[in-house]
């Protein structure tokens, strides 16, 4: 029952978010701020994780393929497939759900309990639209770039660490990451990124917007936002995969 209530509340909130902004110039500034906040500040963590994960995937693949029938370039191929299909779009989005999601829920939640949202409403500003729309648009715009960087750094990490560990040669790795390339898999990955970007921003914004109480409740909203966003990412990952692979 609570789930249906929350779903209804979320839908109504989104109805208020996707309205015509009062002043596009103000919203444009907000979107640029959010691109920096959501995208640029996430770059270091995404880069570090991607490089190391790329390396780990390469080394694991190299030592997993012990059969002489499996060519060594399969290591590069496996690394590319793992990174493009799953690691960068899904795992990085889950990490962003933690970083960006908790930030959004606590920011909007704190604004709610300190009456800043009431102040916006009294001024005649559509608070839902002003606070949430720029975050959604910013994430949907910047996350594909972030994930593209993650893919590149993941493959680079695999290359550097694979060679350093003696797991693969430069030629085999590069040959492997170019083998059997199918463009639709990139579209599949970026479709997921856009859907996940929407989830990562809109769900925490919902939990923040309807925070009631004090600082304790802001913390609870933030935790709940991350948990629900992560679950939704996994569910939509399955749905999108089912659609693309059948």
């Amino acid at each position, binding site marked *: 029952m609570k789930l249906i209530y929350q779903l209804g509340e979320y839908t109504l909130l989104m109805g208020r978010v996707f309205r015509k902004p*009062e*002043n596009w*110039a*103000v919203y444009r500034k907000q979107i640029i701020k959010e691109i920096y906040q959501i995208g640029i500040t996430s770059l270091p963590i995404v880069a570090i994780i991607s490089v190391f994960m790329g390396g780990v995937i390469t080394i694991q693949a190299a030592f997993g393929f012990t059969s002489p029938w499996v060519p060594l370039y399969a290591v590069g191929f496996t690394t590319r497939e793992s990174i493009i299909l799953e690691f960068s779009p899904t795992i990085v989005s889950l990490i962003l759900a933690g970083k960006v999601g908790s930030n959004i829920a606590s920011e909007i939640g*704190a*604004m709610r309990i*300190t*009456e*800043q949202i*009431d*102040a916006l*409403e*009294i*001024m*005649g*500003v559509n608070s839902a639209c002003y606070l949430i729309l720029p975050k959604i648009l910013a994430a949907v715009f910047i996350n594909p770039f972030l994930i593209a960087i993650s893919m590149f750094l993941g493959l680079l990490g695999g290359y550097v660490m694979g060679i350093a560990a003696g797991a693969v040669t430069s030629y085999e790795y590069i040959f492997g990451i170019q083998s059997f390339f199918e463009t639709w898999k990139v579209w599949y990955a970026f479709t997921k990124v856009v859907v996940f970007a929407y989830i990562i921003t809109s769900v925490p914004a919902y939990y923040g917007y309807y925070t009631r109480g004090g600082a304790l409740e802001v913390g609870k909203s933030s935790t709940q936002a991350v948990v629900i966003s992560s679950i939704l990412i996994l569910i939509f990952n399955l749905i999108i995969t089912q659609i693309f692979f059948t």
Partner: protein
Amino acid sequence: MIEVKNITKSFDGRTIIEDISFTFEKGKTNLIIGESGCGKTTLLKVMVGLHLPDKGEVLFEGRDFIKMDAKQQQEIRKELGMLFQAGALFDSLTLEENVQFPLDMFTSMSEEEKKERVNFVLSRVKLEGKNKLYPAELSGGMKKRAGLARAISAFPKYLFCDEPNSGLDPKTAIVIDELIHELTKEFNMTTIVITHDMNSVLEIGETILFIHKGKAEWKGTKETVLNSGNEALDNFVFSSEFMRTVYKR
């Protein structure tokens, strides 16, 4: 002028305010007083449209706010300014950006005009030169003054103040009261102040509505509040030793 007529509001079956009617006069500082939990803030939130009343009317110069559609309500809201208890300044914006926010959002003023207006209202609340500070860098009294500056930056017709001097020392509280009163006269606004501070009542209470247990118990002015003959109001007014000693009760 704002008129409220027969306003009733309940939450979860519990009536918070019942059948309240009052006229808040233009160019005057109108006070809503009463004990904590009596329904003052609920009435204020109904008046500014944050709560929908169960019944009653809120008339801004005869225009019924409750019956308006969202777009019409938004137009009225552009004529409102509100000072919140804790200021409610936007944490991510500087003082200047906070004050300029309503101008950015709803006016077609040039950047130069906006800067001029911001500097003017900041000087009116004695915060000149603090433009680049963030709310976290301001003291409690400064936050109230900054909230007031933002509330009046678009030169509103109606100013609402929710316990403007709560949490302030007596000297700063008087400064805030005087500022609200001066600005009311200067901009000829209909100002509504919620308070339970007797200093404020006696300083700036040109018209007073006393709410007791959710009902409009007494209406008057600062000149009549001390001799109202109303038992509930007397209990409220003379609840402190100071008031009893000074006024020999």
